[in-house]
């Protein structure tokens, strides 16, 4: 009787089931193979090609490459072209300012999340996640409405009698900066909230018990513990605002060139693909440098997360 229970056959299985069994039972890399192939073909190889195009002269006709020869010309051209320098400098300054402002405006929200009750927390979550689910263009468009000649800001100021003529805010550096900060704010807040929701409330109590004021607790306990969140948020906001296309295009007007809009013009309008490759590479490398810097700074302030052996 008991013997029968394990020598009895299992339910009959089809070929597909047995295949899945075979793939899973070894706990091997097999389930990931399709993804690895797709990522290799659609990401790794294209990056290699992008790199190779930056180092070659070529002719493009009807969206296809006709001929290609090795050349360092485009790289040296780019590095000596003042337009590149000013454009990348502008992008970099803008992205760094945006990141700093996002920390400034985002951190208080995270603090409110920390001390808030259940409904405050939910409200913050909804207000943070909802914009991420709306398109960046829609959110940028809102700023056209607000900052435009007949927009919210100018209508208000004029009806208050503070100005006679509409202020020109649109198509300036300021419009781009305001838009950037507002659009990337949720990306900063989310990782901060993630850190805050894992926060051990007893630490705040312990700090208060040891005589710290609220501000003192914030400065000496909460802030240091949330550095990883700040690091993650800063890395995300920097990458997005350094490489964004929409905001400068819409709020900066036709003449406002940042790295992304420059690449777009080179690739789509002037069909200078080698230039586009070089610009993309510079964009990626400079972005990476800042990300590494952010990671180093974050690591410095989070040595306590490392194990004893580290």
């Amino acid at each position, binding site marked *: *009787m*008991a*013997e029968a*229970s*394990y020598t*009895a056959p*299992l*339910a*009959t299985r089809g070929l597909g089931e047995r295949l899945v069994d075979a793939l899973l*039972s070894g706990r091997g890399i097999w389930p990931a193979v399709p993804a690895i192939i797709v990522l290799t073909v659609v990401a790794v190889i294209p990056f290699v090609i992008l790199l190779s195009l930056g180092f070659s002269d070529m002719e493009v006709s009807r969206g296809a490459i006709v001929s290609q020869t090795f050349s360092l010309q485009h790289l040296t051209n780019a590095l000596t072209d003042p337009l590149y320098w000013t454009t990348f400098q502008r992008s970099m300054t803008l992205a760094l300012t945006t990141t700093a402002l996002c920390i400034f405006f985002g951190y208080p929200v995270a603090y409110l999340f920390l001390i808030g009750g259940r409904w405050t927390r939910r409200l913050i979550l909804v207000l943070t996640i909802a914009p991420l689910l709306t398109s960046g263009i829609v959110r940028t468009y809102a700023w056209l409405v607000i900052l435009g000649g007949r927009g919210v800001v100018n209508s208000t100021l004029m009806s208050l009698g503070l100005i006679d003529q509409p202020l020109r805010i649109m198509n300036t550096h300021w419009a781009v900066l305001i838009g950037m900060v507002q659009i990337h704010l949720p990306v900063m807040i989310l990782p901060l909230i993630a850190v805050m929701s894992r926060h051990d409330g007893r630490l705040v109590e312990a700090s208060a018990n040891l005589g710290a004021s609220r501000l003192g607790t914030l400065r000496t306990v909460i802030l240091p513990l949330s550095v990883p969140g700040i690091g993650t948020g800063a890395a995300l906001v920097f990458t997005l605002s350094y490489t964004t296309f929409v905001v400068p295009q819409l709020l900066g007007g036709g003449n406002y060139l940042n790295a992304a809009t420059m690449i777009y013009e080179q690739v789509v309008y002037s069909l200078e693909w080698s230039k586009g490759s070089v610009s993309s590479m510079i964009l990626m490398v400079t972005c990476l440098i800042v990300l590494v810097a952010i990671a180093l700074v974050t690591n410095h302030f989070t040595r306590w997360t490392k194990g004893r052996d580290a």
Partner: protein
Amino acid sequence: MMQGPTGPATSVATTSPVLRIGGVGKRFGTFTVLDDCSLDVAEGEIVTLLGPSGCGKTTLLRCIAGFWDADSGSITIDGQDMARVPVNRRPVGVVFQSYALFPHLTVARNVGYALRMQGVPRAEAARRVAAALETVSLTGFEDRYPAQLSGGQQQRVAIARVLVMEPRVLLLDEPFNALDAKLRGTMQVELRQLIKSLGLTSIFVTHDQEEALTMSDRIAVMRAGRIEQAAPPDEIFDRPATAYVADFIGSSNFWPSLVADGRVSLPDGQSVATGLRGAVRVMARPHNLQIAPPAAGPWQGRVAFQRSVGPLVEYHVETEGGDAMVKVVAMRRAQDRGFADGTAVSLRIVDPALCAVYPA
């Protein structure tokens, strides 16, 4: 006096064992988790693997269940080698430490899981599920989800879930860990009676000696991947095979001594016979010592600390010349408080034959 690790030499060796663990070894990298473990478990026997965390007891259980493969040795059930039998074909049922009930399935579907996986016809499955739930007195809980049950009820679902597939060997991995202390005692007795009434051959893993003493027909004390001694609870307690077992189970006093003419002298002047030679360690249980006024004997000391443990009083006595505290347990006497802290006393070993002698 000395005994090696006891195999089937005890009361249950009459028929061939259901589960036979033969020289099982297991390494993780350079770390040896199991080292040549052998153990036979007879039909209907409950054997406990007892030891501190990291001693390999859970590893051995996982090897029997097939979650991990042993590196060497063999595991056979009813004479059939399990080496090439995958987890889902082994005739074992595991009750996990946290029960591992499927949170998205009702009690009835949890219990009927194994039957559905084997393609047992619906009507028969329903009948067997109902029977299993009745066995663990959970009839009427079919449509509850695990989260809606108490810890004790969850444990019973976990047991019913494996009972339903009629395993040859039941493996229980610290099943009382998730329960609060008060419930543990009654659940231990209930579970033992249930397993005994079903006649299930079982391996029970725990680090709690009281649990082991309550639950088992036989206890296998493990240390650093080896089975030190496998014997019935009384024997483990009264005749621990090694100093480690003596120290791990119950409370004990140790003294260094030397063998002379086949006898070891005890601190109170008595002596005990031994087959060992040279330097040895002598062990006496606290209840094998008697505490008396100083005039009563030559072994003098002073009470350093005393405490009441239920009906007993435990004395820690600082003996003259010795640096070790000697533990003595005596019945609490109604009239007086026994010997107060600081009182001078004398000690005597009640039965020298119950002292154990180990190599130093």
